[in-house]
């Protein structure tokens, strides 16, 4: 059973979103996503300063099985990326909700969390896929 923390929000495409309370959010991929992809070998990070619309493909994670796009869960500007993943993509496998975060966005508007799932709803998404 994959780990789905209650304090985060989720997307159908398996990103998680943490509201940092200062108008920024942190984004990563879920435990379920890293488990399905398998050992990650490469992460392509978005460019800092890039303006993203919700659902824009903005990063890529690659495992020995597949390469997958990461989508912006909400609209915003990329303010920070997790450079450490360049050398250690496996951090996403070992700590998807912590050190394995991928990028931070400055929210374009305050109503940005519309359409995101809570932990319970995301649990359902994962179960429906199984």
């Amino acid at each position, binding site marked *: 059973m994959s780990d789905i923390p209650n304090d985060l929000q989720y997307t159908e495409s398996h990103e998680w979103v943490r509201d940092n309370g200062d108008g920024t959010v942190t984004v990563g991929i879920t435990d379920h996503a890293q488990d399905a992809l398998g050992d990650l070998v490469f992460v392509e990070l978005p460019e800092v300063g890039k303006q993203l619309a919700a659902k824009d493909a903005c990063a890529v994670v690659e495992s020995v*099985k597949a390469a997958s796009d990461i989508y912006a869960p909400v609209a915003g500007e990329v303010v920070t990326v997790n450079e450490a993943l360049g050398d250690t*993509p496996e951090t996403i496998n070992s700590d998807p909700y912590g050190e394995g975060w991928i990028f931070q966005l400055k929210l374009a508007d305050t109503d940005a969390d519309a359409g995101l799932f809570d932990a319970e709803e995301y649990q359902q998404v994962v179960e429906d896929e199984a």
Partner: protein
Amino acid sequence: MLIQEQSRPGRTAPAQAPLHMADVSDLPAGLRRQRRAALPEVSELQAVRHYTRLSQQNFAIDTHFYPLGSCTMKYNPRACNSLASLPGFLARHPAAPESHSQGIMACLHELQDMLKIVTGMHAVSLAPAAGAQGELAGVMMIRAYHDARGDHARREILVPDAAHGTNPASAIMAGFTVREIPTGSNGDVDIAALRDAVGPQTAGIMLTNPSTVGVFDRNIQAIAETVHEAGGLLYYDGANLNAILGKVRPGDMGFDVIHMNLHKTFSTPHGGGGPGAGPVGVSKRLEPYLPVPLVIRDGDAYHWQVESDRPESIGRMTAFGGNMGILLRAYIYARLLGAEGMRRVSEYATLNANYLLARLKAAGFTAAYPERRASHEFIVTLKKEAKEYGTNAMDFAKRLLDYGFHAPTTYFPLLVPECLLVEPTESESKESLDGFVEAMTKIRAEAQDNPDTLKQAPYTLPVRRLDDVRAARQLDLAWKPAQVEG
């Protein structure tokens, strides 16, 4: 051990050394080597042993059942190789004039014609040197067609999510954007989603039929109408042509452009990266854009058609006439089969696939599309086995090697979890198919008793389980000498 590691300074194999040193004094000094190349220095016997050992370690269609889905690893008849190796073919210089090349040009012209007939297309160019290059040629022709009509807004190519990864890559290489079309749970393209996606921006759709999930798309007529009505063109990826050879023609299904993988359907040796051949066929409206050279016949004489004869051509994709040796083998294969034999290819390929699928289902394995008849290949999903025993598709694949079977394609297509894509081809006997089912059944029993047996596999091959994660994280692609002598 690499041959470089066997090298000792001064050791040579005189019989294999060139008789004369090439004179390179006319090359610009800046481009000449300043020191000797780090070539291995070994004896003739060492070289013979090294490469003989490598050939013995090879897992190949000549030694094992090779059901690698989507790759059509069929038997390569020896006759094709020996006839293509006739001195008249082998010794021909690629720059020889037309007057001295009439024999091989006649073969190429006939091959163009046979491919036209068997695919139902209006014209064929043999130029592209691989399937992916054929794809690129195909989408470049789609682009040239729209551009020639001043229809510059058509910049989007539709690609079903069951497509080969090369399809979206080719479209992007040709300057298009790609929109993905979902596949329904029955394996057919989601026709409603397709209708929503087409519009004045649609340049075309790239479709494989039968698709990579191993089923024939029953809505092909509706797909063709939908895309054509929107002003787009239909591209046929010939990866799975083996399933319909001589039975169904892409031209009749409404496709405007097609590439064929001769190294799959027409049985030229492949694997390990080539060489291949990816001829393209087109409908009448795309003919002006075909890549050059083409062979045309004028009375009893054959001529090359090049850029100056075909000003609207997308151009030249390879040196000279393409991968001639491969084209010749395909030509001979087609001549050996004839039209009747080509129909037999697809009949036996689909019969073998459906027999194998039925036996695996009876043995308790799960088909990804249980209600569908297989084309020439099918998908088994090991999701249940992964859940119950903790052994994944890769573990099954690796263990199959110990039983003397090359693994099927694993984890492709991506939309089916823990999948094996199995393509037995028409070449295999009933006994080898039965042997595969027996091995799969034994492996599942092992997974049940002791999953570790699978996780450590293979045990019997020259190398054990490779660390593909480390290999991908720490790329090490070039041998470097420990020390270079100055």
